[in-house]
């Protein structure tokens, strides 16, 4: 059954006339023998092609990376192979998916569905939804601890953050936090959780053991996106209403504020931690910031209303989800030029770190 759904979703996304014929045939009540037999032949053909392609994928899986892009208006997730820059799967999830977190070891992608108030758990081996975690609230931001033991979900409406055990998703701890918690990031040692609280203009620093607030860092107005550099030394909060990013040195707590474009949303650090890429939703652009000099290196025009951003460091590519134009812009991080644009789905958002290494 599951496989059938998997097939049908692929069929729908590819619009193959033959396949549509099969679906139609499947729906008719009276089927004659020839119809059924041709259906079986065709289905098995498709099945075998499919299983072949999955085999191929898993054979080279060691070096394959994928971008999981939430499409809020389509209730789907588009999976992009970051080498070929093709959409390889479109997965139906809950209602109004926004946030995303990926667990490369567990082979899982977690998707927050704001309107169905739950989290879809995707098995990334076959890109099927295997579990749904109920959240009574509005889950937006998601992040997974580096050891992949805990999934954190920010409940925007109830001002709390949930800590969900990834091996027993019914095991949930929670903490109350500032107003409208949005973005989440976790230190490389799994000990510290950082949360942007949009309506209290701060970043809460949480001890993940006790789930207690250690301290709060005042940042700019309406912080939304948050990201940590690979080493965990630099933390960036993106402050939507004053068009800035706050870059915090997590060792010294020193804060630098830097101007970016109009209504910035999310950010991602380069592998060498020298550069920050920031999406500017109202400028349809990405600001490339030099952190040391606090100066803009360049501004790259992308699609309309860019929101989520993640970098595939291995392939030197930055992926930007464009809410307004329903696509993903790919930037070459070596040249800082736009490489290509990939059509995804209605209202692409991809809020969170969405590059899966498989």
């Amino acid at each position: 059954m599951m496989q059938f759904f998997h097939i049908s979703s692929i069929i729908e996304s590819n619009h193959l006339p033959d396949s549509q014929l099969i679906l139609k045939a499947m729906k008719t009540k009276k089927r004659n023998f020839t119809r059924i037999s041709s259906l079986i032949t065709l289905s098995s053909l498709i099945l075998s092609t499919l299983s072949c392609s999955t085999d191929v994928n898993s054979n080279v899986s060691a070096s394959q990376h994928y971008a999981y892009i939430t499409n809020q208006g389509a209730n789907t997730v588009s999976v992009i192979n970051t080498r070929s820059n093709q959409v390889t799967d479109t997965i139906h999830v809950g209602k109004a998916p926004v946030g995303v977190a990926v667990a490369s070891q567990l082979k899982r992608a977690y998707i927050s569905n704001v309107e169905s108030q739950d989290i879809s758990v995707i098995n990334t081996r076959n890109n099927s939804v295997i579990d749904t975690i109920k959240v009574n609230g509005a889950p937006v931001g998601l992040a997974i601890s580096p050891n992949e033991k805990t999934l954190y979900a920010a409940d925007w409406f109830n001002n709390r953050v949930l800590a969900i055990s990834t091996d027993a998703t019914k095991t949930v701890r929670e903490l109350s936090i500032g107003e409208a918690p949005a973005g989440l990031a976790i230190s490389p040692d799994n000990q510290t959780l950082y949360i942007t609280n949009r309506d209290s203009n701060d970043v809460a620093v949480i001890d993940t053991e006790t789930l207690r607030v250690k301290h709060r860092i005042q940042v700019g107005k309406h912080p939304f996106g948050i990201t940590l550099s690979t080493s965990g030394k630099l933390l960036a909060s993106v402050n939507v209403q004053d068009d800035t990013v706050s870059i915090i040195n997590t060792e010294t707590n020193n804060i630098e504020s830097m101007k970016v474009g109009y209504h910035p949303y999310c950010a991602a650090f380069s592998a060498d931690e020298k550069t920050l890429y920031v999406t500017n939703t109202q400028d349809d652009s990405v600001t490339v910031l030099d952190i040391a000099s606090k100066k803009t290196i360049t501004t790259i025009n992308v699609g309309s209303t860019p929101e989520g951003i993640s970098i595939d460091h291995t392939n030197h590519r930055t992926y930007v989800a464009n809410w307004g134009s329903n696509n993903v812009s790919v930037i070459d991080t070596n040249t800082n030029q736009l490489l290509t644009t990939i059509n995804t789905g209605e209202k692409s958002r991809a809020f969170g770190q969405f590059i899966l290494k498989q």
Partner: protein
Amino acid sequence: MKKILALIALGLTTSLVSMSASAHGPSPLKVDKSVTIKAEPAKVWALVKDFGNMQKWHPAVTNTKLEKKGEDTFRTLTLKDGGTILEKLRSADEADMKIRYEIVSSVLPLTDYNAYIVVKKGANPGESTVQWVGRFYRLYKLNPPIPAGQDDETALNAINGIYDAGLANLKKVAESSK
């Protein structure tokens, strides 16, 4: 012409209909409308980019007042029913034939509105395609229950009405005038 005002009014008064049983997330809303016009893109663009003269093509607008404040350009639209909308010009790009603007304050049942209108070559010679895309939030940003007239449906109805009426009349004006 009255249709659009009726639509807005409808949206404001009949929000009882929109009983959003499920809690709404902080989801931005989008309206994306296009029209094909049998007129040269340059001609259509001339109408669209004229920020201070929206009454020339939008049937709900009776008057447009243009104001400059330093570097910034604003316009106040007066609607048929007397309501006003204050808008700020964000950019007008000649090469892309794209104008971007945002609402500063208005009588409309929405917040954080920004939009663009882009004119492109149509499928056939002498034809244009006009796309109008808006992004906004409903008026009420807090937790449900959502007060009547401040929900997603009401905001969407208002903008759908404005875009449909505007694009239909832009087509009429561009195709009839020389």
